[in-house]
């Protein structure tokens, strides 16, 4: 059971997406785990063949418990695993729909060639006589997973926040933010800038694009911040017990609000190297998955910095709280019409305020200010993003 955050102690294995005999490659999604942060897809970190599944679906185990054995590899996905696959009592963590697997697999339901179906989805469908061919898969590589079958059957959990327990999420946010305020000496900087160039660049680009290829201003804000961070390594990485560990890779966590309360900030990997169109489509994908509770273990575990953007209905500025063990977080306020000085004259412009909360154990306000100015500069020349 991987640790998906400093405060995670245990997780419930909701679904296996692989079974013994399957070949797995590094990065494959092998299982779905339910945690305080919602349902998270667990990736594997080595190549090999699945020999044995050590934890049954529906069972809650402590972090560090081996989940499966992989041929040729160490027990995985937890290299520092403790061999204690003893189920913990269920304490309101597992979704009610997670039944224990039946002792014998029901008859296989035929599926069209090329369609991948997770074992749990196959079983669920078989038990209820559902035709898998008619189901659109939302799992990795278009695979049909149990949630897809549940949706089709109408027997699944309610649509509302499937996979997300909001009270658990609130507790996770509370624990992380309390730790942040207790341990991290924050300093805050704020910078207002003319956002017209960036906004007009988005409008020009979108004018001759079909809807699905268009951009939102938010993608430019994330890209500019990621590019600026290349020259400011003291804002990108983790604070470990031995001190700051800068990260070469820039994995921006994007804070995504969940209607009804709660938020998550999963990572967009290697944000600085993504073309805007790709970044936009990753952001869309992430928002959709966060809101239905389906992000992946690496997305949750490894953002190196976070951006919180208020979008178009927020206020001028936000003063964000660093998400430990990260050492910086950026906030973008909503666009506001303001009188601004342009070429010595007052002109109405659309102004945005970017803020930075930095960790004073690692960086100082002087560098933070230079970083915010760099973001501003990059957004004045959006063609280069």
């Amino acid at each position, binding site marked *: 059971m991987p640790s998906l955050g400093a405060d995670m102690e245990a997780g419930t294995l909701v679904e296996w997406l692989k079974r013994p005999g399957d070949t797995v490659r590094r990065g494959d999604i092998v299982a779905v785990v339910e945690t305080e942060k919602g349902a998270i897809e667990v990736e594997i970190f080595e190549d090999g063949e699945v020999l044995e599944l050590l934890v049954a679906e529906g069972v809650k185990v402590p972090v560090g418990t081996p989940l499966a054995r992989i041929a040729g590899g160490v027990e995985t996905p937890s290299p520092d695993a403790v061999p204690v696959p003893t189920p913990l009592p269920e304490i309101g963590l597992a979704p009610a729909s997670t039944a224990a697997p039946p002792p014998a697999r029901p008859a296989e339901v035929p599926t069209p060639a090329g369609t991948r179906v997770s074992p749990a989805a196959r079983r669920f469908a078989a038990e209820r006589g559902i035709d898998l061919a008619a189901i659109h898969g939302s799992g990795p590589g278009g695979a049909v997973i149990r949630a897809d079958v549940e949706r089709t059957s109408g027997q699944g959990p309610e649509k509302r926040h499937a996979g997300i327990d909001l009270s658990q999420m609130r507790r996770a946010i509370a624990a992380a933010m309390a730790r942040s305020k207790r341990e991290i000496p924050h300093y805050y900087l704020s910078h207002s800038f003319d956002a017209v160039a960036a906004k007009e660049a988005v409008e020009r680009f979108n004018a001759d694009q079909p809807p699905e290829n268009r951009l939102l201003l938010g993608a430019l804000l994330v890209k500019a911040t990621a590019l600026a961070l290349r020259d400011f390594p003291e804002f990108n990485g983790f604070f470990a017990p031995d001190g700051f560990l800068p990260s070469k890779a820039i994995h921006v966590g994007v804070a995504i609000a969940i*209607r009804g309360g709660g938020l998550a900030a999963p990572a967009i990997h290697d944000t600085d190297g993504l073309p805007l169109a790709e970044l936009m489509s990753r952001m869309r994908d992430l928002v959709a998955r966060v809101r239905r509770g389906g992000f992946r273990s690496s997305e949750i575990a490894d953002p190196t910095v976070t951006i919180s953007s208020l979008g178009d209905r927020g206020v001028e500025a936000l003063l964000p709280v660093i998400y430990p063990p990260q050492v910086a977080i950026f906030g973008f306020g909503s666009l506001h019409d303001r009188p601004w000085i342009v070429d010595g004259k007052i002109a109405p412009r659309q102004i945005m305020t970017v803020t930075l909360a930095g960790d004073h154990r690692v960086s100082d306000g002087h560098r933070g200010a230079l970083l915010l100015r760099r973001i501003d500069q990059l957004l004045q020349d959006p063609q280069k993003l």
Partner: protein
Amino acid sequence: MIREDLRAAIIEEIGNIAPEADAAGAADDADLREALDLDSMDIFNLVVALSKRLGVDIPDADAGQLVTLRGAIDYLARLA
């Protein structure tokens, strides 16, 4: 397509984007962003979904007309 069909299509697509939002219960003139807590990404996805479903092009500059149910129905009725 008559207005009631358009209304049903819009409400269904909002339901796909924001399952927990009560689109059918929103007043015709209410700003959907305020009434249903939709953000710019949700409106973006609504424009994508409606343009696909109805086979119409909705220019980015017109997206602002889709933020109320009445505005969206009026706008799409003109295109359809």
